């Protein structure tokens, strides 16, 4: 481990552990039918760990994330964060979530969108903290812009900045760059890595992009298509920061190939949107 990585590892003990035990989710549909999104998922995520949930579209990875975010209740099994239901973490304002569709308030400026977590938590708005994060995500000078005046990539940066505003104990990222073009996406991934290394907190990233998962995560959990089940767990061995020398290495490519093959096998030749 390099010197830098060790420093990061020391800081990494922050955050809440997550435990999923026998988690299943069934959505009732019309005429008594139902769809099983997730079946029997068991997983323990350590404090300060960066975990990626990888899988084809419709494999229930977002459902798993929404259960950790207290947005859905599991039909069977339990989801606990720090030994309690996730909603307790949310109630204490210790949960940070970045959604795929940014969920910025269209009537508020960048600054006021970023001040929202403070206001909702009834804490004094920390202007210095907001300025620091605006700088960190490269949006200096756009404080007064409305979301519709920003590009998709910039909106996601605001969304990421908002999610870590209160230094949460758990960070959940639901395909935050899923709707962006490949170039912007790669750069924001590099940014996200740096942002995370500055405060390595327990993080769960949902993605269908193999390279994104390997670039960012400590462990990659591969889910099978509906109903979502864990089909493979891979530990990512690379030190951080993972720069070009890592992503161009033969080992990285081998892992990309391995996980891509796993995804191909899971979808079984059925068209996925990759």
């Amino acid at each position: 481990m390099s010197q830098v990585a060790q420093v990061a590892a020391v800081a990494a003990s922050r955050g809440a552990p997550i435990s999923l035990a026998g988690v299943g989710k069934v959505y009732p549909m019309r005429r008594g039918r139902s769809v099983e999104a997730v079946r029997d998922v068991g997983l323990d995520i350590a404090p300060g760990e960066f975990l990626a949930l990888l899988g084809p579209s419709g494999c229930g990875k977002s459902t798993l994330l929404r259960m950790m975010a207290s947005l859905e209740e599991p039909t069977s099994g339990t989801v606990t964060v720090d030994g309690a239901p996730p909603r307790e973490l949310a109630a204490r304002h210790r949960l940070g979530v970045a959604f795929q569709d940014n969920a910025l308030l269209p009537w508020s400026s960048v600054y006021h969108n970023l001040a929202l977590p403070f206001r909702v938590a009834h804490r004094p708005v920390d202007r210095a903290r907001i300025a620091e994060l605006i700088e960190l995500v490269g949006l200096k000078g756009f404080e007064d812009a409305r979301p519709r005046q920003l590009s998709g990539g910039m909106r996601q940066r605001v969304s990421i900045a908002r999610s870590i505003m209160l230094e949460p104990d758990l960070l959940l990222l639901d395909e935050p760059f899923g709707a962006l073009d490949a170039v912007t996406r790669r750069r924001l991934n590099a940014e996200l890595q740096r942002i995370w290394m500055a405060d390595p907190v327990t993080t769960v990233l949902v993605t269908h992009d193999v390279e994104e998962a390997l670039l960012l995560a400590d462990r990659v959990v591969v889910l099978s298509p509906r109903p979502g089940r864990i089909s493979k767990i891979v530990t990512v061995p690379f030190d951080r920061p993972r720069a070009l020398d890592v992503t161009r290495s033969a080992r990285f490519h081998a892992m990309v190939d391995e996980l891509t093959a796993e995804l191909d096998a899971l979808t079984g030749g059925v068209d996925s949107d990759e």
Partner: protein
Amino acid sequence: MTPSTSARATVAPTARLPTAEPSDEVPTGLAPPRRRPSVALFLLGRVVNALWPLALILVAWWAWVRLGHLPPAVAPDPSGVLTFIAHDPGSFALDALRTAGVVLGGLVVGAVAGALLATVSWFSRLARAVISGPALLSQCLPVATISPVLAKVFGYNTTTIVIITALIAFFPVMVFTASGLARTPAGADDLFVVLGARRLDRFFRLAVPSALPRLLVSLRVSIVVAVAGAMLAQWVMGTSGLGYRLIIAQSSFRTSEAWACSVVSIVLSVILYSIVSGLCRLASERFE
């Protein structure tokens, strides 16, 4: 775990990202701010814009009376009516002002009541169920039938007419606001859950801003029905204002005066609508 500041300390200037100039992401709307005309000019433009259909109506009316050779006692032509108004502009202005006062009073009371009812409905499903029935029923009762009842209860005075106007004006505001409160931007409901927002914060920081555009639209609807309602209430109950003057003139066969009241009330309605919708547009421009 308490929020730690040690982690934040590691965000040294070196953590600044190479994205301070997002070159490939051109912000689309950061053009120089549009110049806004002054409020007075803006309103004037609105009024002119609203008045040309009136001119068209006047021409059609004139053609109808002249080509049909209708006697003045049946239908006076525009020049006769306008001459009548010009003969005594002060009294028509006063009556118009009285009616306008009732309309605006009714609109304010109705809008506040409608917004409050929508708010209560937002907070309580039970309240929504309790409110929706009587609210709908109130719109099914014709002004002509409820006015005498309300007059018996509240007395034959301006207050009762304001109440009747408010009773008509509140409904669009209530319906539009209630639907606006529920029309939150995509993902925002989830966001407020994960932020651990309390109900009151969710209301003021999410539902109210979401409802504002629709609330403004509802005021434009309300002002029109409020004018009609106020005219009718004055017509039925008879205290003062254009509606009252209309019924008196009509029953005394002073056709020109009756028609003059109608003309003034239409102009009043258009002007009030223009003012309200102009103000709403200004508000929504500031807001968006």
